[in-house]
């Protein structure tokens, strides 16, 4: 079914597949992963994790009818997270800064912005209560990864007296993977994707971050992982992300 070449090697993968594989490892062994709107790569990763885990974790894709375990309306995701039942969620940002603050609202002054993003969605809540929030931003530039966000949709850390069981654990971009140290509120370069360099990451990152003396290369997805993604996961994604599945996996969307 998947539009792959017959002779697959370890290098025959697309960036999206590498990122989904990385995110799948970050998800780990958990009970329930929820994926918000407009997040096709995290959705791929979550369904891959469920495929590998033989049905564990539960995966709820916002906007999906087939991949949802919610029957109590639009608020259930948030209630469920408030109950501590959502282990992993994904957030992005028009801007993300070195303290893990994310901006989904706009650039410049709030009342007279220079650019406007869609809005904060559920971030101003989920970032606080979901234990493992994985930040995801493909565009890795000084425009997106900034010293200080112009608007805090949700902060990377909170004062000690703020109820905050959740927060960021990592940031993945098209160039690299950062871990987040919650105590120090700082990112640390964890690995650089194949074909990219530490120097390039430094040059394109607007905030300071820690890095070990030796930065590993992000491991490529295995042949079996690629097969699972293309043959099993991709068709499941088509319901919510028809364009993405068509562009990345070459699968035509079925009509809704």
């Amino acid at each position: 079914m998947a539009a792959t070449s017959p002779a697959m090697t370890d290098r025959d993968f697309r960036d999206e597949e590498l990122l989904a594989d990385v995110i799948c490892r970050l998800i780990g062994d958990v009970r329930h992963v929820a994926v918000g709107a407009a997040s096709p790569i995290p959705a791929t990763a979550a369904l891959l994790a469920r495929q590998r885990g033989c049905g564990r974790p539960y995966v709820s894709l916002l906007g999906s009818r087939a991949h949802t375990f919610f029957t109590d309306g639009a608020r259930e995701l948030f209630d469920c997270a408030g109950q501590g039942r959502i282990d992993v969620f994904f957030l992005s940002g028009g801007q993300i800064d070195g303290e893990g603050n994310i901006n989904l609202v706009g650039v410049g002054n709030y009342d007279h912005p220079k650019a406007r993003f869609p809005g904060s969605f559920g971030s101003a809540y989920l970032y606080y209560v979901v234990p493992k929030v994985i930040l995801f931003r493909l565009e890795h530039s000084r425009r997106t990864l900034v010293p200080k966000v112009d608007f805090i949709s949700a902060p990377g850390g909170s004062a000690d007296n703020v109820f905050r069981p959740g927060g960021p654990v990592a940031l993945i971009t098209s160039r690299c993977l950062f871990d987040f140290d919650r105590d120090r509120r700082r990112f640390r370069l964890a690995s650089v994707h194949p074909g990219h360099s530490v120097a390039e990451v430094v040059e394109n990152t607007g905030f300071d971050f820690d890095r070990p003396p030796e930065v590993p290369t992000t491991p490529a997805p295995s042949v079996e992982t690629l097969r699972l993604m293309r043959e099993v996961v991709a068709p499941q994604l088509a319901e919510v992300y028809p364009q993405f599945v068509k562009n990345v996996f070459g699968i035509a969307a079925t009509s809704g």
Partner: protein
Amino acid sequence: MATIARTLDDALEPIADGCVLAVPRESSGVPMAATRALIRRDVRRLHLVALPTSTLQADLLIGAGCIETLETSAVSLGEFGPAPRFTAAILAGAIRMLDATCPALHAQFQAAEKGVPFMPLRGLLGSDVLAHRPDWKVSDNPFATNDPVVLLPALKPDVALLHAPLADRAGNVFVGIQREFFTMAHAAQKTIVTVEKIHDGDLLHDPLLAAGTLPGFYVEAIAVAPRGAWPLPLPDHYGIDAAHMAEYARLAATPEGFVQYLDRYVHEKWAA
């Protein structure tokens, strides 16, 4: 008691200029036929509350000049890109924006549903979402020490406008798992529903249907609007019209293109 209106316009009559109008998210059943009818009627100064987010509906109403205040957590066209008329209106300062976060809006509707003046919510502290909402308050949790918590006021819309698969002649509306429709109808003064079709028989009498049915006493008026969510999806009934959404994104990118879109899909072809 709900009445089945003769025409869509009749059903929409309670939506007056300047009213607080609540509408649902894309994946629940957005009343798009009704939205086009409101634009044709040239409704003005709406305070639109999209629970918790919006896509084409808010963008269309903004572009057509119907919106004075928008209260929601995000507006975009999803896979089809940013919402162009929303973005342009914000940059031009043409609408008043009340930025929220999804669970805060849900909690505000639930407060109205319960008849309580406010609802507490975790999160939010230290965010600029909270900083820009003087109508939200920070209080101490009286059941703990040094535990600040945000209190959100009840949000009681004048009208909730929904699209659902079925209604019966007693005004009961089958909404299935779109449970936020219940909360919206409970919270609103009046609820107007467009439906794909009328169901013969009583939706409350079948135990299976009853579990997903909003009772008629919450409903002011119902109008039949087949494919009434088009080009947005209606869960379990039809998907999004991707080609149309792409066309909208392309046309609405400019004011001129948006006018063309209105002419083509709102004012002429689809006029009653």
